[in-house]
């Protein structure tokens, strides 16, 4: 052993002994905190311990341990803030949220340390000594009594900026609601019988319908944003609560003289706090069952040809609308025949229900002898009862294979904040699409020239719809297949080509502020492990643009899917800003300082109407108008001239070149402008 190895070993040994002291201290403070009798000095001590642990882990070169210790520090700081805040409501609920996190993180810390130190110890043949030390301090896995009391009184910690965002959204929702109410009142002023309507009435009615549609769309968007914000506040990574069961399984198995490996998956998934509270209470029963009733002793496993060490897994998954929590073991499985015999003896007769219900019969256990923590036959039925109270279901499948194995699956209704998205690559862009809006994915060989098995191969590429340069998606060498997706859009079959499938992921979709991108293009954005920030697109955007490609110019944007997009062209910043402020409530407004720039915007952004000045540098309004009318795809775009040039011949010139309306700045009023815009937008 060289000097470096010797130093590492000394450090590991020191860390091992320190660990025990630090964790004991932290758990003691945690117990005291649960009762509300904890002092600042206590917290200072535990924070010093955790900090020391973090430093030692770094010294040892264990980033994992250091990170977990760091997270533990953060959780304890949060607990300290809540527990010692004189202004906070002194409820157990507040404490329990952080209490649960602290408890889980300490267990996770011990779990990670155990794995790392065991790996080091095993090479030195000292793992048995460690196990014996741990066995000596075993306690039955108990949960804090407080957690069962706080389900309906849970308190979430909310960032002030999140609250402000919610308030702002509420204000916008209210404003839109009021606007809708006003518009509805205005419609009441029209004659009851439509046959009596004049042309003016019809114009007013169309105007009102247009405004109502836009207001209701905005209302819907704001409400959706509000929901997403609330959901984000209410969720935390499952790891914060459920990350520490490894220790419990390890201790139980040691107590039972069994060897069990514990694995967990999906702890990064964000889950609603109240569901985590429920699972924090119920999962120990299921894991305990797996160890006590499922996994056999090493001797029994050897007789069955199994490995000496059993496996218990906790797997968390989400689908749209549901959270799945699975506890799986490779033990002997549920012996239904044996249970039926016990039922006959215990109940004094044959069990009348289906045999699959036997494991849920109260008072019936697969263990002959009951002890403090297992064999009393109450666990599974109580857990299922709790799950059902939350609208969920618990199912047990056993045996999973000829050698046994048990799978307990919990399905709970889950909020819609965590969404399943299909992530694809289109040239350099990563595109995320809601999975439930994709009906089919298909791949065909690159040399296939015609439709195959109903997959049309001559369809637009997503890059075409997003205006991504085609040279950036030259097929890579060896890229043999082309990939296609079919949107699940009612009434139409929309296939698009893309470059690469990056898989289905779960992500929290954050709403985006209004930005200078097409309305209804982006649903939001979020983070995906390994891919970073991803934009989530509205599938309807692609279907509507696809429809546009198939149709003549006059239906270039589906009006029911978007607010109007106005391009304001004026060299005066003040005029641009005045117009923008007058219009931006009802439309999405883009700006350009002269005609040349306007043409660039028009070629990169779908615009519904151009509002332009005449006298401008570089390219004036008349030249811009001529360019628009001569452009193949823009020639039908409505153009309204707003200028101070009030001579009749100047007005005639503008109209001759194809302006749809000619307004004078001297006579400017907002209503006239809005009515003119509405008229040409709805034409």
């Amino acid at each position, binding site marked *: 052993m060289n000097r470096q190895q010797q130093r590492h070993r000394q450090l590991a040994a020191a860390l091992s002994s320190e660990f025990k002291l630090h964790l004991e201290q932290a758990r003691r403070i945690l117990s005291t905190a649960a009762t509300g009798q904890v002092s600042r000095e206590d917290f200072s001590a535990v924070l010093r311990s955790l900090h020391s642990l973090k430093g030692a882990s770094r010294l040892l070169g264990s980033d994992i341990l250091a990170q977990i210790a760091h997270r533990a520090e953060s959780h304890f700081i949060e607990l300290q803030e809540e527990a010692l805040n004189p202004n906070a409501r002194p409820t157990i609920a507040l404490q329990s949220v952080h209490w649960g996190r602290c408890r889980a993180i300490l267990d996770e810390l011990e779990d990670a340390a155990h794995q790392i130190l065991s790996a080091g110890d095993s090479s030195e043949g000292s793992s048995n000594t460690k196990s014996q030390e741990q066995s000596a301090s075993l306690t039955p896995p108990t949960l804090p009594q407080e957690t069962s009391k706080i389900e309906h009184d849970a308190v979430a910690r909310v960032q002030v*900026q999140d609250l402000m965002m919610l308030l702002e959204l509420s204000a916008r929702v209210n404003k839109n609601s009021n606007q809708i109410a006003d518009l509805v009142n205005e419609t009441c002023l029209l004659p009851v019988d439509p046959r009596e309507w004049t042309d003016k009435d019809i114009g007013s009615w169309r105007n009102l319908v247009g405004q109502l549609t836009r207001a209701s769309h905005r209302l819907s968007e704001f409400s959706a944003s509000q929901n997403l914000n609330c959901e984000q506040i209410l969720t935390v990574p499952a790891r914060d609560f459920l990350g520490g069961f490894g220790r419990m399984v390890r201790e139980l198995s040691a107590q039972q003289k069994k060897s069990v490996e514990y694995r967990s998956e999906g702890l990064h998934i964000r889950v609603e706090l109240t569901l985590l509270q429920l699972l924090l209470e119920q999962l120990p029963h299921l894991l305990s069952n797996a160890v006590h009733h499922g996994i056999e002793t090493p001797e029994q496993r050897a007789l069955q040809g199994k490995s000496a060490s059993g496996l218990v897994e906790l797997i968390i998954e989400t689908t749209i609308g549901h959270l799945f929590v699975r506890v799986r073991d490779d033990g002997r499985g549920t012996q239904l025949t044996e249970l039926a015999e016990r039922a006959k003896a215990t109940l004094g007769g044959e069990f009348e229900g289906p045999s699959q219900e036997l494991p849920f019969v109260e008072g019936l256990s697969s263990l002959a002898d009951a002890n403090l923590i297992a064999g009393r036959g109450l666990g599974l039925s109580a857990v299922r009862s709790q799950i059902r109270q939350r609208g969920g279901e618990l199912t047990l499948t056993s045996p999973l294979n000829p050698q046994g194995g048990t799978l307990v699956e919990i399905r709970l209704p889950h909020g819609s904040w965590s969404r399943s998205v299909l992530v694809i690559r289109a040239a*350099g*862009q990563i595109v995320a699409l809601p999975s439930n809006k994709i009906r089919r994915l298909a791949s065909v060989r690159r040399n296939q020239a015609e439709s195959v098995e109903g997959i049309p191969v001559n369809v637009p590429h997503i890059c075409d719809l*997003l*205006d*991504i*340069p085609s040279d*950036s998606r030259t097929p890579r060498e060896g890229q043999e297949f082309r990939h296609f997706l079919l949107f699940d859009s009612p009434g139409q079959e929309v296939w698009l080509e893309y470059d690469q499938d990056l898989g289905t992921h779960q992500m929290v979709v*954050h709403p*985006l*502020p209004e*930005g*200078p*991108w*097409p309305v209804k*293009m*982006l649903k*939001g*954005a979020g*983070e995906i492990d390994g891919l*970073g*920030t*991803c*934009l989530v697109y509205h599938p309807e955007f692609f279907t509507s643009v696809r429809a546009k490609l198939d149709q003549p110019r006059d239906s270039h944007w589906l009006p029911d899917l978007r607010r109007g997009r106005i391009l304001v062209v004026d060299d005066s*910043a*003040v005029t*641009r*800003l*005045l117009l*923008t*402020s007058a219009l931006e409530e009802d439309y999405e407004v*883009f*700006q*350009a*300082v002269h005609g040349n*720039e306007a043409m*660039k*915007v028009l070629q*990169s*952004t*779908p615009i519904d109407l151009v509002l332009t000045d005449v006298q401008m540098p570089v390219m004036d309004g008349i030249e811009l108008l001529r360019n628009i009318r001569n452009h193949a795809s823009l020639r039908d775009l409505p153009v309204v001239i707003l200028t101070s040039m009030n001579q009749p011949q100047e007005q005639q010139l503008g109209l001759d070149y194809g302006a749809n309306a000619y307004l004078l700045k001297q006579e400017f009023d907002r209503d006239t402008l809005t009515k003119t815009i509405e008229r040409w937008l709805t034409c």
Partner: protein
Amino acid sequence: MHINEPGILAERAQLLRLLHHPASYIPELPSTLRFRCGSQIFHIGISLLQGCSNCRVVPVPLSPPWLRGIANHEGSYWPVADLTGQFSEPKPDTEQIVVFLRHRPLGLAISEILGLVAAQAPQGPQPSQRPLGTVPGFIVLETLMDGTRQIAPVELHRL
């Protein structure tokens, strides 16, 4: 030590964050942030800023040329503008220093932070405030003695 080293940046970002809280206002604090965008140097009042960080800016298709993309800033997604005017170049999806504004959800992609400096005297009589190139929403407040320009988001000053 280069001014863009992470330690320096972190200190500056911290300083800017402090400004968010009136209680931590430091009277002698320099009043503008001097930064470089491409070959141009700008100033912006630090009271107009919320923070500054290194973050990944993701380009958004079908957006105007002045928009560099969106960036995740402390859990929220912000549009990020590009003042350089190098619009013909493809927008890279890379790590980028971004200064985030207060009062409006917008970040500015910048090439380098040059320092926090006291406001300088303007050079001669100033023309009326004028727009900044093709990036909407920004105006040049004044041209400073060294020829650099102090900018501001327009909503705070006009209309």
